[in-house]
């Protein structure tokens, strides 16, 4: 059975990025399950592959609007595609770093892969995933955990 | 008893009465004769001085004096003594430490009769 502590490791990674980059904490929205294999994405997603004891993916996805504001909060005026991707990659990186440190035993965690405007969303390995909305200011991003 | 081979005296140290009896009952090495058993380290050292055993089976977690210290004392009393640590494998570091202090081998609890006798044979080796 999937454990809440495992879920929390990923979430903590995501929350930490907001905290450290903007010194304004993000909050966790009401989490839910998606059973049809389509948890959905915003414009940008940083995807981490996980293998070992559990196999699957974890991704962080955020809309352009949120990323733009985030960049601005970071005193970054260049809101190019490149910078958007970098930012999402940074969040995913922190999540995977957290996971590497805390999951350890039997998990192999990949370097994140950033996709923008995924036409069909992200390819999900299983139909059921956990979706954890991440709210920051008025914006919403989400963390999708699809592991078996 | 086989007259050609010298009998070796054996002592059992374990805080569990059941394990002590179990080892005594199960050991089937002809030239081993159980001369006593102790339920803690202090008792074991006393009994060792009185009976001068050649072979000792030793539990590690015991009241009064733990197995590691006991191993050290017994080896100091008689460097040629053969000590088989018989203990649950909760912590390999403790087991390795017992070997470091002079125990000769390790048998993991729980054990079968066959494992016990195999370990004792191995312990006696050339003797």
């Amino acid at each position, binding site marked *: 059975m999937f454990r809440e502590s495992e879920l929390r490791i990923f979430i903590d990674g995501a929350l930490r990025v907001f905290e450290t980059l903007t010194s304004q904490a993000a909050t966790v929205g009401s989490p839910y399950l998606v059973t049809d294999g389509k948890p959905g994405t915003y414009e940008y997603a940083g995807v981490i592959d996980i293998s070992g004891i559990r196999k699957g993916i974890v991704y962080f996805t955020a809309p352009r609007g949120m990323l733009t504001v985030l960049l601005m909060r970071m005193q970054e005026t260049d809101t190019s595609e490149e910078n958007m991707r970098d930012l999402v990659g940074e969040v995913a990186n922190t999540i995977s770093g957290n996971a590497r440190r805390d999951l350890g035993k039997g998990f192999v965690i990949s370097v994140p892969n950033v996709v923008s405007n995924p036409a069909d969303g992200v390819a999900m390995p299983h139909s059921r995933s956990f979706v954890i909305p991440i709210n920051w200011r008025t914006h919403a991003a989400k963390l999708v955990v699809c592991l078996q | 008893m086989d007259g050609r081979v010298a009998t070796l005296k054996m002592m059992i140290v374990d805080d569990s009465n059941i394990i002590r009896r179990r080892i005594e009952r199960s050991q089937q090495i002809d030239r081993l004769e159980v001369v006593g058993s102790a339920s803690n380290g202090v008792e074991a050292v006393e009994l060792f001085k009185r009976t001068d055993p050649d072979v000792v089976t030793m539990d590690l977690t015991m009241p009064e004096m733990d197995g590691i210290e006991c191993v050290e004392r017994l080896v100091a009393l008689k460097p040629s003594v053969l000590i088989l640590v018989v203990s649950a494998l909760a912590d*390999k570091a403790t087991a390795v430490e017992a070997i470091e202090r002079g125990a000769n081998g390790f048998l993991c609890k729980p054990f079968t009769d066959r494992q016990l006798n195999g370990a004792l044979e191995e312990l006696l080796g050339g003797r």
Partner: protein
Amino acid sequence: MKSPKGTEAGANRRVRLDIILIVAACVAFLGVVFIPGLRLAKSLSNDASALKFVSERRSYTLAVRNAVETLQDRLDSGGYVQAPLDQLRKAGEGLSDAVTRMSGAREIGVFDTPTETTALADPQIKASVTALDREWSAYRAHLAPLVAFHGIPFYDSESAGTHLNPEGRKLADATTLALQEARQAIPRMDADFIAVTDALEKSAAASTSRLSLVMLVGLVLAATMVSFAIMLQLARKKQEEAVRDAQAQMQRIFATMKEGLFLLDRDLVIGSAYSAATKDLFKRDDLAGLSFEELLKGLVPEKTLDTAMKFARVLWSERTKENLVKSINPLGEVEVRFQSEAGGASTQYLEFDFHRVRAGDDIAYLLVSVSDVSARVALANELKASQEKTQAQIDTLLNLLRVDPNQLSSFLGDSDAALQMVNSILREPAREEAAFRKKVDSMFRQIHAIKGEAAAIGLTTVEERAHGFEENLRALREKRELTGNDFLPLIVKLDDLFTHMQSIRELLGQLSRLQEVVRNTGRAPAAGAKPARATKPGAGESTIIEPLAAGADLAIMLKQLAERVGLENGKAARVEIAGAAALPNAYRRVVKDIAVQAVRNAVMHGIEAPQARRDAGKDPCGVIRIEVADQGAEGYRLTIEDDGQGLATEKIIASAVQKGLVSEAEAATFGPKQVMRLLFRPGFSTYEKATKDAGRGVGMNLIANLVNESGGKIGVSTSPGKFTRFTINLPATSAAGSSHEAA
């Protein structure tokens, strides 16, 4: 495996043996050939020079006789005597000198005596020389007057002619005597000389033959040594080839083997030879000369490293029985974390195995083999997980076998809808605390209903999960601040419930297929049973999940619930149900939910323990009556009544005050109706201990909610010691008519 060190040590031993053999051969050669040969050659050369000396001196004997004879002739003929006398003196001196020198030979040291005499030490020769000496001494006495003579032996006058003077006469007499003696003495001396030369010749011959023997021995020895050397060379070459082969083989093995393999010396430093795989396993090239500690540092936790180093060290102690410590090898299956340059880390499981390598009796090395067992560990984990899953499935299956299929089918449908509902509640975006709180309440109702139903049909695996969910929700209700974070455990539990329901569905599917097979083989064994797959799917399912007469499933479910809850609480109760068939489909669900809670409450709180009932003159088995009455336009009336202890108003008030639902003063003003209303307040329960069947004070509250949601009304009447009756009026529905007719 043969150790390289072992071969090396063997080679060393063999080389040492070779050297010993060569030195021995040299000593033997010196002792057997060289020294005797030198000695023999010396003696041979001595013999030769002695022979030459003796042969030369032998002529002096003849010279002496000739001189004496000539002297006599001269004396007779009045000739000149000076020349023969000189000749005699010279020969005599020569002979004397020869005899002196020959007899002067002492016991000889090989190197420090004059050459010519050394050979004469032979006893036979000595005897001859002694004889010679004696004879010569004796004979020389006869010669003495001759040698001593000086002057002229004649009177020399014209008249008388030449004739001997007195001295001459003496000389002539002596000469005659000497000549006479010479006839005996000279041949004898000559014979002595011959004996000496013969002996010398014989000795030389013996030396020669001995020398040739020595030469032969030397030849043989030399030949032996040469052949030995050749053999040695060949052997060494072969051995070198073998070593080269072994090394090449080792290299090949090291290059191709998947295992990491290296040697540790006494200081636990890695040797220069290791398998290629070792580098890959540890992701580094600088293994040779690296300490074992350095190798492991950072890969394994500090404590494991410490234990591993101790373990490796105790293996060097002869006290430690190698085979008796394998089980405590701290690196037997160890998780290692490699930090990559990119900052990532990968985790692998490595298995280290230590073997002692002995050279002779000593431990020379520890051979360490390392293999990557990540796959094995992963497999073991999977296996364990699947075993756990299988166990859970078996539990569920056993559970399912006790459950009525019809009830199960409707339960699965209902609960799936409820779970979906829970998920949609969760899915509503929420940021404010109030929104989260509302979700908790909504979810509670759904989950509680699932729990009640699962309990009713005896599906404990679902009941336990729902109970856990409910407990979690309950905790959230009491929590001061609510955020999405607090909901994380809920989705994990929801996921588990979904998964569990899914596995029940799968098991049910398998059961129905199994039943099909059993039925088909049982019915038409001779006709050749059609494969199970060929049967119409509908046919199989219909026998398992065949709709019973409306209400029958409810009756069965409630009876089982009452039995089970009674059993768990040491009570006996039976359910009597009437008019359930009159219930329209629209109310089926809500009535079921209400009845489940009510029956559970009745058993928990209403019905007394059997002894108490007997004492009160009642049947030990309590009765719960459920009646549904169709009241036409008035709708439906549901009556649930138990013949238990009834409701005591004081008890209700005391409990409500204790829970903080009302103040004592407030309660004092309550009339009976108001007291009864307390029953339906959230958080009320009169039961002391919380169990999954009752005690959370939610049962009555849930009933009230359900009734409210249906637009109905609920009333309570009770008589202490006799009964408690709930009367629920549900309004008529438009849907009710049609289903009413159908039923």
